[in-house]
């Protein structure tokens, strides 16, 4: 009897994080009698432009009562009927998450800064109308391979950096979901710091540090005094016991090279009391 050996099976897929640009539908009011007719009118003007475009629904401008009154299933179906592909909701109030998920939509984190670009004038008939009350559609960035007219300038999403000034104490967890994390103090044993980007500890790193958690293999961890319980970059990790004694307590940069963790001493450090 042959038992499948799952331990040595080669993986047939990889899950990685990626930065993308996408159309965002900023909703201002959720009154169904005004929202849907206006949406249909707008989409009718630029059918080919918006055809099969993935779109994120942004609710940050809508009050919680307005969000509670919004039927997410109806909104998703209307958008699909108009040719859009709604993939998720951003800026939803607490308490709406379950209804969003029941409508088959994902939940996206709010973004602190983003650059927006005006819709290209490829839109037929009238030029882009002044934003009508109720809806506002702006491409956050447009990547359409349009043969005609101008290609809109590519905009980049600036990732925010989280800065912590007090020591991260045992049992605490600090998470920077977009971008870098800067700790202007120590990370104590039993604490965890995580970031999508790099982690900079201007003190002693005695706890756990995990950089590049969404899969960014270029992420690094820098600390003035390196003695971590565990470090990880994009999933590759090492515990304290497996670290080379020569690098401990020095100022170290941890990075990923050829899929393995690399530790570079960048200086020495002595705490002054």
């Amino acid at each position, binding site marked *: 009897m042959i038992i499948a050996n799952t331990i040595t099976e080669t993986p047939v897929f990889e899950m990685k994080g990626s930065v993308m640009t996408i159309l965002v539908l900023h909703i201002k009011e959720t009154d169904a009698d005004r929202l849907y007719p206006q949406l249909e009118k707008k989409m009718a003007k630029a059918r080919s432009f918006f055809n099969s475009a993935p779109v994120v629904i942004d609710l940050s401008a809508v009050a919680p009562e307005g969000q509670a009154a919004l039927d997410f299933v109806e909104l998703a179906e209307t958008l699909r009927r108009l040719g859009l592909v709604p993939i998720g909701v951003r800026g939803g109030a607490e308490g709406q998450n379950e209804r969003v998920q029941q409508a088959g939509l994902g939940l996206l984190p709010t973004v602190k800064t983003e650059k927006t670009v005006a819709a290209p004038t490829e839109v037929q008939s009238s030029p882009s109308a002044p934003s009508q009350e109720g809806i506002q559609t702006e491409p956050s960035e447009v990547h359409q391979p349009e043969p005609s007219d101008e290609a809109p300038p590519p905009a980049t999403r600036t990732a925010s950096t989280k800065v912590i000034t*007090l*020591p991260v*104490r*045992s*049992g*605490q967890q600090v998470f920077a979901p977009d971008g870098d994390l800067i700790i202007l*103090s*120590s990370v*104590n*044993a*039993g604490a965890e710091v995580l970031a999508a980007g790099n982690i900079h500890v201007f003190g*002693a790193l*005695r706890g756990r540090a995990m950089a590049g958690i969404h899969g960014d293999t270029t992420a690094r961890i820098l600390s003035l005094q390196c003695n971590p319980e565990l470090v990880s970059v994009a999933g590759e990790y090492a515990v304290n016991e497996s670290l080379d004694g020569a690098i401990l307590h020095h100022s170290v940069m941890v990075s990923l090279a050829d899929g393995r963790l690399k530790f570079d001493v960048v200086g020495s450090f002595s*705490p002054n*009391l």
Partner: protein
Amino acid sequence: MNGHRFTEKPGQKPARVIVVTSGKGGVGKTTTSAAFAAGLAVRGYKTVVIDFDVGLRNLDLIMGCERRVVYDLLNVIHGEGSLNQALIKDKRVENLYILPASQTRDKDALSMQGVGEVIATLQRSFDYIVCDSPAGIEKGAMTAMYFADEALVVTNPEVSSVRDSDRIIGMLASKTRRAEQDLAPVKEHLVITRYDPLRVNKGDMLSAGDIQEILAISFLGVVPESKSVLAASNSGIPVTLTDENDAGEAYYDMVDRFLGQDRPFRFMDAPKRGIFSRLFRN
């Protein structure tokens, strides 16, 4: 007869609430609560010390009033006795009162609101309220720290105690009334107990400097490892009320520093021994 206990002095500042906490058990919280409260009372401040360790009460033993307990904190919270009836006046020091914990009830019987009301009432007629916290990070400890204005973080010079103190400091910064209402944060003071400079020099024990570097809070002082502590506990006398001894002196230094006075840090260096004491040391 009971009326004199609650003379509300008009225009008086409300009492400062000090929690004595640590996370780790057995480091000297109750010893410190008793000694510190007694020290404040001796210095002339009207002080009450409250035991928050429901079910494992020790403060009444350390204060020597275990044979006079009628009502306790939980009785007061549940309206079964008045605060006046529960407060026990210390027989040795003017200005010193004790509010014992319940021994028979469960810690779940503690209610945050009830404790808040008791503390608010006490604040009107005392200068300092010392809250003796139980070990751990459960309801008893969280309730003891919730209303604090200041905290004495009691730490042994030993790795697990330092780790637990770090945890509790994190909670003082986030799970207290001051943190939740965005007021000025709880002022934390590091108290290192059972300190032995000889072992520190040998490298067996963490030094005060090492501990300060990890915990990064204001340093109040060290209490040396002392035989007087056990003797005092067993006699039911706070170590600041017994005959002159090193631990008692250390606590008085800390009380004075706490009250704003300058005191040189004693008991941090190994005593210099002459040749004869080295020859004949036990």
